[in-house]
C-alpha cells in the first residue's frame, strides 16, 4: 500500500515539472527576444572585397617572365 501511494503521484508530479520547464523556456526566450537585441554597427572604413585572392602563386611565377617582357616592350603604357 505504501509503495502504491508513493508511486502513484509520480506521473502527476512529472507533468507539472515539464510544463514549468516549458513556461520557463517561453519566458526566457521572450525575455531574450526583448532584451537581447544585437546591434551591428557598420565599419568606419569601406569594405574591400579582395578579388585577387584566388590567384595562385605558381601561376604568377609562371607568368612573371612573360609579363616582364610585355612591360619592357610597351614603355608608353607602363
Amino acid at each position: 500500500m505504501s509503495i502504491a501511494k508513493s508511486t502513484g503521484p509520480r506521473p502527476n508530479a512529472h507533468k507539472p515539472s515539464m510544463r514549468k520547464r516549458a513556461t520557463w523556456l517561453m519566458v526566457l526566450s521572450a525575455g531574450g527576444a526583448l532584451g537581447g537585441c544585437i546591434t551591428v554597427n557598420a565599419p568606419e572604413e569601406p569594405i574591400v572585397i579582395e578579388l585577387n585572392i584566388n590567384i595562385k602563386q605558381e601561376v604568377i611565377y609562371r607568368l612573371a617572365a612573360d609579363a616582364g617582357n610585355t612591360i619592357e616592350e610597351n614603355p608608353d603604357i607602363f
Partner: protein
Amino acid sequence: MITRTLRLSVLAASGAVLALALAGPAQAQRDPGYEAARASGQVGERTDGYLGFTGSPDAGLRKVVDDINIKRRALYAQKAQAARATLEEYAFTAGCLAIARTAPGERYQAPDGSWQVRGSGLPVRDPRCP
C-alpha cells in the same frame, strides 16, 4: 644610269628603315602628362596591374590614364590568352612587376589598398609576387 638609280633607291630605302628604327622607340615614350603625374604622385601603380589615382584628377589626366588602362587591359587579355592564363592572373603579375619597377618618389598601392610612396628600398608587395 640604271645602276646609279638603283644605288640611290637602295640608299633611300636603307635611310627610311633607319629613320623608322629611330622613330620607333621615340614614339613609344610615355605621354608627358602621364610622366609628370607619376613623378608628382597623382597617379600610382595599383596591385591589379592598372594605374590608379591617388587623389581626384582633372579631366585631362583622367582621360590619359583611362586610355592607358584600356590599352593595358587589351594587352593583358591578348598575352594572357597566349599564356593560357586568365586576364586577372596576367594583370596581377604585371602589377607585381610594375610596382617593383616604380622609381623612388612614385606611388604604388600596398596589398592593404593604401597608397605608398616608393622609397629607396623594396616596395611592400603581395607575398605571392615574384
